């Protein structure tokens, strides 16, 4: 696969007749405070029931992309200036956050943001505000995915560990019965074992509930292994996309995101002798 | 050689010291000189009652700078600033009447007295945060009023008259009262503002802001949050005390009602409408609130005289609080960062002038 520009033709599943159950982001531009442009025409698709990964450098606009989808730009003083987000035949980009959730798209925010002063169980119940289904059953459902949470149910969420908070944040989002889940750096600050566990769980929920997932990750290794399709973002644009397996073998992705040399050897951090000129696709 | 002496555009600064300047370009320096001249001539231009309002604005501005130090820059909500003014006023009055000290000693003494008490009142800030601290200042306000009411030394809140002041052979009389005090208050205000501006450019000022934004991180920077908060109280109440001393002389007598809770609330309104944590805001806030009040008074007088409304509907009376409240509310709804933000934006505009972006 060659680089430089996104190649729609190279990814047949995406160009196939758009499925209304897909979440599609269409040429979206976002500005903060009316002047700081962050997204410069981002298009991507989360196919129904699939896991899609979104990679990119710090400040590329990944979080912003998720906010644009979930309608959470407004509290940050951001605006979609151009483009649309559609899901299930509805245009989401005009809706406020709570309506987006009703439409079935739920974001797990960066840095987890659990309700610190509420107990674990109360956190989950707050996730059930839309009243889809019986919250008692839903609690049970979440506890089967994350048995640890059951043990912590009456602990104040602010005093649980990072990994527990991440599970809680995902569990809380699941209480709203989403059709598409947006995860912002779920591995952030988690120990390797837990990263595996969280991703395994995401995969499991994806399989069992047919849940579509868009996951923003810096841990490209795990993300590409646990996803079907991937995008790479730089400077507010999608610069690369493809099946996850194919992406993982792209030499640039290998070098900058997976940290392996051309020879497939992991290079030692100690040997990074000089500062690297960051690769730009623009 | 600067590209232009009058605009900032195109001028590169080559030394960090240049970033420290307050008035960077000749245009700014020129406007400063013009401003000083206008200020000096103001009493000759303004009618007497307006001049009185200007004096009031300036005295409040001193108190509001102080309130900005504690509440605006350090984030310690203070609803007792009027009481600190009161401490200054009473201390000044006692110094002037009991110790026969001249006003230029009595007023700073008022500041020092308020600073001492202010630091003491600030002690709970070592443990309390946010609104829980606010109630400590509220408590002080109430205890202050109560105590004055029980102290025969302070006439139990009745009037303590201050002696008339004389400077360079000119006496303060009914006829020249406002001009007389204008020329005394103005330099005090300018001096107090400059001092604070200086503190702001240095580590002491930054430490206060740091404590406001994140006191844990401030501690990690080696700043003692407690010391910083007490410094804020010390400075903030010193300013209040000086304002109180000025107010005592300006009002000719100290009476407890002048330092009540509603004045504290009004000072807070001035600080917020002006823009918390901004020096220009400390001038603009009092200016705005006092002007608004005058405007409303005129309007309600006029309306009251029109007999436009049926008996029993007291429009004239209703108008003042109504318009006052509504203005503040609308103002904050559309410009929560206060008047200072307008000031900032217009300055930015001139900085980039003649270029738009």
């Amino acid at each position, binding site marked *: 696969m060659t680089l430089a520009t996104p190649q729609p033709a190279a990814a047949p599943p995406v160009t196939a007749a758009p499925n209304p159950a897909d979440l599609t982001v269409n040429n979206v531009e976002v500005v903060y405070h009316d002047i700081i442009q962050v997204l410069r025409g981002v298009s991507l698709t989360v196919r129904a029931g699939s896991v899609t990964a979104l990679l990119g450098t710090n400040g590329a606009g990944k979080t912003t992309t998720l906010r644009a989808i979930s309608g959470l730009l407004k509290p940050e003083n951001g605006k979609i200036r151009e483009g649309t987000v559609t899901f299930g035949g509805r245009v989401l980009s005009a809706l406020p956050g709570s309506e987006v959730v009703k439409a079935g798209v739920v974001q797990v925010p960066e*840095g987890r943001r659990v309700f610190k002063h509420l107990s674990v169980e109360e956190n989950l119940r707050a996730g059930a505000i839309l009243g889809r289904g019986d919250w008692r059953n839903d609690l049970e459902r979440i506890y089967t995915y994350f048995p640890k949470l059951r043990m912590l149910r009456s602990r104040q969420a602010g005093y649980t560990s990072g990994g527990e908070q991440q599970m809680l944040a995902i569990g809380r989002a699941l209480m709203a019965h989403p059709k598409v889940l947006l995860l912002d750096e779920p591995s952030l600050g988690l120990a390797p074992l837990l990263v595996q566990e969280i991703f395994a769980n995401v995969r499991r929920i994806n399989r069992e509930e047919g849940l579509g997932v868009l996951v923003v990750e810096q841990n490209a290794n795990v993300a590409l*292994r646990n996803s079907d399709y991937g995008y790479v973002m730089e400077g507010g644009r999608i610069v690369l996309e493809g099946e996850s397996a194919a992406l993982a073998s792209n030499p640039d992705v290998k070098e900058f995101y997976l940290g392996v040399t051309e020879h497939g050897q992991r290079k030692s951090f100690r040997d990074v002798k000089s500062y690297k000129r960051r690769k730009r696709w623009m | 050689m600067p590209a232009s002496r009058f605009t900032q555009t195109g001028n590169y600064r080559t030394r*960090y010291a240049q970033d420290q300047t307050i008035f960077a370009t000749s245009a700014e320096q020129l406007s400063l000189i013009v401003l000083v001249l206008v200020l000096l001539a103001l009493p000759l231009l303004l009618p007497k009652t307006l001049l009185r309002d200007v004096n009031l604005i300036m005295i409040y501005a001193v108190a509001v700078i102080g309130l900005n130090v504690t509440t605006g820059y350090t984030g310690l909500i203070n609803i007792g600033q009027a009481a600190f003014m009161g401490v200054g006023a009473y201390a000044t009055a006692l110094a002037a009447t009991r110790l026969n000290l001249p006003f230029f000693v009595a007023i700073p003494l008022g500041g020092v007295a308020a600073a001492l008490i202010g630091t003491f009142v600030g002690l709970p800030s070592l443990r309390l945060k946010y609104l829980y601290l606010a109630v400590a200042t509220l408590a002080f306000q109430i205890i202050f009023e109560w105590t004055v009411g029980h102290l025969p030394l302070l006439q139990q809140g009745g009037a303590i008259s201050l002696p008339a002041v004389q400077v360079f052979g000119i006496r303060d009389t009914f006829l020249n009262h406002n001009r007389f005090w204008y020329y005394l208050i103005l330099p005090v205000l300018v001096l107090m503002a400059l001092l604070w501006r200086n503190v702001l450019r240095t580590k002491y000022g930054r430490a206060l802001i740091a404590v406001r934004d994140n006191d844990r991180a*401030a501690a990690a920077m*080696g700043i003692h949050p407690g010391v910083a908060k007490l410094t804020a109280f010390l400075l903030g109440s010193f300013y209040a005390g000086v304002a109180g001393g000025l107010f005592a002389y300006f009002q000719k007598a100290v009476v407890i009602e002048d330092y009540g809770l509603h004045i504290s609330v009004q000072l807070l309104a001035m600080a917020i409408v002006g823009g918390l944590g901004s020096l220009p805001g400390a001038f603009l806030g009092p200016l705005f609130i006092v002007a608004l009040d005058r405007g409303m008074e005129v309007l309600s007088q006029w309306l009251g005289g029109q007999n436009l409304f049926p008996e029993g509907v007291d429009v004239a009376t209703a108008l003042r609080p109504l318009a006052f409240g509504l203005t503040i509310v609308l103002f904050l709804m559309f410009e929560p960062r206060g008047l200072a933000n307008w000031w900032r934006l217009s300055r930015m505009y001139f900085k980039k002038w003649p270029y738009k972006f």
Partner: protein
Amino acid sequence: MPQLHVENVTLTFGGLNALTDVSLTVPEGEIVSIIGPNGAGKTSLLNCISGFYHPTRGRITFGEHDLSRAAPNVVTGYGIARAFQNLELFRGLSVVENLLLARHTHLRYSLLDSLVFYGRASRREAENRAYVERIVDFMELEPHRTHPVGTLSYGIQKRVEVARALTLAPRLLLLDEPMAGMNVEEKEDMVRFILDIQREQGITVVLIEHDLGVVMDISDRVYVLDFGQRIAGGTPAEVGCDPRVIEAYTGVAAAEAAQPQAVGA
């Protein structure tokens, strides 16, 4: 010579032991990493060192200073700086202002100097500014110099954290997951910064990091915490093969984890 000694430190929160009898030593000039699962007590240990928590039992010393009961600002005064895990920046202030604040203890002039400003305070402030700008250059933060920190992306904020700690000109630098939320390329940059800090400025570094690749590559010594207890300690090679570590932390041997994994669905 200032060495950091943690001796038998126990920390309890209402019945819950966050740390139990932890001892470790950080020799001068080394990079020492602390690893362990989430909730193992790594951050709590840093909190004890930097004065945010005080150990229920045990002692922490840095050179001749006893840190066990010292307040954070005092610890900072001893030459210990810290970058926080969960971003404790002054969000409303710009990058430069954040760094200026870190110079607080290095600026020596009185409140009176400050009121007058011209003269001593003014000179010191100008020097100070020059110092801060050098750090901005070093940490490659130029594009963000005047931006309010709160609007920067997560990864950049982490870098500002490290820069600010560095601005304190410490003898010991405590870094709590400085590379969280970064991709490999950015981690490489951060590693360079850390190595330069250690090698060129001789600053001792304590690093908490979940990326074992990084830890194994650059540490002189690694300690492993689990459930508040120190379960291993030694050179990276020793620790990487310790079965307890593998069980508690990685699930696979660290040596293996350090290898690229076969990528595929």
